[in-house]
């Protein structure tokens, strides 16, 4: 087994463990490369099927191509696709692009709050109806107690401390100082009522591993990751007002891998194009508050 085989085997094991132990489970799909690889790993784990609902938080500021891509594969791969949103903040125009909040507050409203209330079932969920080929309001409102998230330990400091199975209390709070032990491959799969758990199958993957796996498995990813001839591409995807493309000539997956290995990005942090990270507190403050 090479290193990708090992990473794949461990992630598959974690996904199956989650599916075995949690009755009310969902997987967050941001449409980005990491959670798309995670979705692919679920197809590996369940032999072509994805018996877990996929949840996407639509901020309505996502680059339109991301939404088109999401819906295409939701239909093609027969996914149980669900999205949620903060319709109040959007209606009241409480967003950074509207000029009424700073970037971090906008993230909090459109992502953290929307996510929290979509997971808990308090706000409406929209489910892809495969017969009508469009989204309908989902009747299921039960809270998800297990949430699978595609974070990687190499992304930034706070994520390097995560567990594969990480508990959150009722208010989504992550107690970094008191995390459960994980011995060998035995994880914390027992949870008291009222708490829920985040499951991180990609914790050991690096950005380079992700691209190597995309290359090996021929996983379709959004074309925004590639230079379309203008000498720019996205390295990390988010909302268009806060995500900037990077200068790059990489048109294909192998070219991206070269760029990461020895080229211009071998020493530059992946999220450097994400503006909210550089504000005070940045990602760590967001994460303590429930951001993924």
């Amino acid at each position: 087994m090479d290193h990708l085989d090992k990473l794949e085997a461990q992630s598959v094991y974690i996904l199956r463990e989650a599916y075995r132990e949690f009755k009310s489970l969902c997987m967050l799909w941001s449409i980005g490369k990491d959670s798309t690889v995670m979705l692919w790993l679920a197809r590996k784990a369940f032999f072509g099927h994805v018996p877990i609902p996929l949840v996407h938080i639509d901020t309505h500021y996502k680059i339109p191509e991301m939404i088109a891509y999401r819906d295409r594969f939701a239909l093609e791969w027969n996914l149980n696709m669900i999205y949620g949103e903060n319709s109040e903040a959007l209606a009241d125009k409480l967003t950074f692009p509207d000029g009424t909040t700073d970037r971090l507050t906008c993230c909090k409203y459109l992502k953290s709050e929307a996510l929290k209330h979509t997971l808990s079932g308090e706000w409406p969920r929209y489910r892809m109806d495969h017969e009508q080929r469009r989204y309908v309001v989902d009747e299921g409102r039960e809270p998800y107690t297990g949430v699978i998230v595609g974070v990687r330990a190499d992304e930034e400091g706070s994520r390097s401390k995560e567990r594969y199975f990480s508990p959150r209390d009722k208010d989504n709070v992550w107690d970094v100082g008191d995390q459960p032990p994980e011995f060998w491959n035995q994880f914390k799969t027992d949870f008291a009522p009222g708490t829920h758990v985040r499951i991180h199958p990609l914790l050991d993957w690096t950005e380079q591993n992700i691209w190597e796996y995309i290359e090996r498995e021929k996983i379709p990813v959004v074309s925004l990751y590639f230079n379309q001839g203008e000498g720019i591409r996205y390295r990390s995807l988010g909302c268009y007002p806060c995500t900037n493309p990077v200068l790059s000539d990489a048109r294909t997956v192998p070219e991206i891998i070269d760029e990461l290995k020895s080229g211009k990005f071998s020493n530059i942090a992946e999220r450097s194009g994400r503006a909210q990270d550089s504000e005070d507190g940045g990602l760590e403050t967001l994460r303590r508050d429930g951001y993924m």
Partner: protein
Amino acid sequence: MNGRAQMNIVIVGHVDHGKSTVIGRLLADTGSLPQGKLEAVRESCRRNSKPFEYAFLLDALKDEQAQGITIDMARCFFNTAARDYIIIDAPGHIEFLKNMITGASRAESALLVIDADEGIKENSKRHGQMVAMLGVKQVTVLANKMDLVGFSEAVFEKLKADYTAFLEAINVTPVSFIPISAREGDNIASHSGRMEWYKGATVLEQLDQFVSEKELQEKPFRFPVQDIYKFTRSNDDRRIVAGTVAAGRVQVGDEVLFLPSNKKSVIQSVESFNTDPKHVASAGESTGFTLATQIYVRPGELMVKPGESRPEVGSRFRVNIFWVGRAPMIRNKSYKLKIGSARATVKLAEICSTLDASDLTSSQSKQQIDCRDVAECILETSRPIAFDTTAVSEATGRFVIVDNFEIAGGGVVVENLSVGETLLQQHIRDRESNWEAGLVRTEQRAIANRHRAKFIVFTGAQGSGKRVVAKALELGLFQNGMNAYYLGVATLDRGLDADLGSHADSAGERLRRMGELARILTDAGLIFITTIDDADDYDIETLKLLNEPNDILVVNMGESSFSRYQPDLQLADGGVVADAVTLVAAFLKAKEIIIDYQI
């Protein structure tokens, strides 16, 4: 494809002995830091008027820098020409022992950092002990802060001798000792000019010299069954036995044996998604199989090859355990054991000895296992499980114990002790000797009732029609003037078992309560009838024991999920209900439970 080798290394040691500094140095000296990271940390130090330290690179979280100690284990990635490394920085502070163990359990090799100036401390020993127990075979000791002792060879040699003696006492042979100064960079990536007397490897060279674990493929095949999948609703009829191969290899056509159920089948296919067809699966692979015959197996069983050396099956075993739970481990309390893919209810049966991991003093007299104790003890599960002793197979000989939703301890199985009286047998002996009977004797009841008492259990697959037959039997016996009583198990969920919740872990307790209930109702003279889906040998043997001294009658309908147990009566499923009832009644008559039965 990039086939580079990868290795997990854990770095442990007493608080403030410089683990994070070693890693910070390794990252900086191998050029593994993202651009700007070093500058950012230097800048933050300048703003806060603190001297820069390499350790700050790792202690990325705010509250960590505030406390100045590593709270959790952090992972960092770097590579040398030889391979890729994940360095796991385990916290040294005693409060965070469980995090240290989490880190160490994932590692193949360990770097143990000792402050040459301060010397061997409590955690230097405790961590050495833990690392050994977790099965990390390769340990290199780094004598850090050599700059504070004037790069003295004598200090280094003394520390080496003292610590080697300690390691020998716990059967660990260190790979090497390296004198370093992480802060100054001596002997990290390049040889120090200030310790000419040291001729050994630098830390970086040593990392590349660690050898990867011997291939598990050579060992006997072990496949803990993680789950059984059938995605019928997506038009997929494959019934797939899924899991990760813990050791050995298996191929299409191989005969396989499931334990503890003892069922056998043959591997029909190796299943996968988006790969070329596979015929073989070996250690480390997360895979799935279809079987040539339809047999009923459950998640938690261990699939092996009958021709190879067999794992142990038992419910009583000697273990080495370390405890990190807030509450101590005590007797007469039910815990949850997780070993391989199996989960079982477990109790602490006996404490043989406990060990204070810091000074290695042992005690034979402790009545409980406290937080941070290492203990040798005897555990007993409520039902038999399949496992290996750790000397035979580490992956299937390691377990954790869950107390009140938390992983509170972990350990390794040393010996199978499944002989002698079980806790259940002890319980029944105790119960019966304290049973307070009324003045009516069993025989008097039987004469008055014109039948004997009996516990009748119908079993078989879901949908085999056993409930319909069981209820019809109750009605038929009642209409013949007998005291028959049917109780549906689901009824108990909202009554007697309401405190147990819906989780599968409570199956053992449900079974116990059913058995105790049967003991009471048969004592009252009833013919007590119930049904159980897919009862296995163990379920029936438990009910039989719990119902003692009264009798049990087992009727199986359709496909049997027993492996050795012979039901008293075997009925076909899908037959005429009245005929089935007549057969059972005739059997009861033949056994002189009832005198007569009119249809």
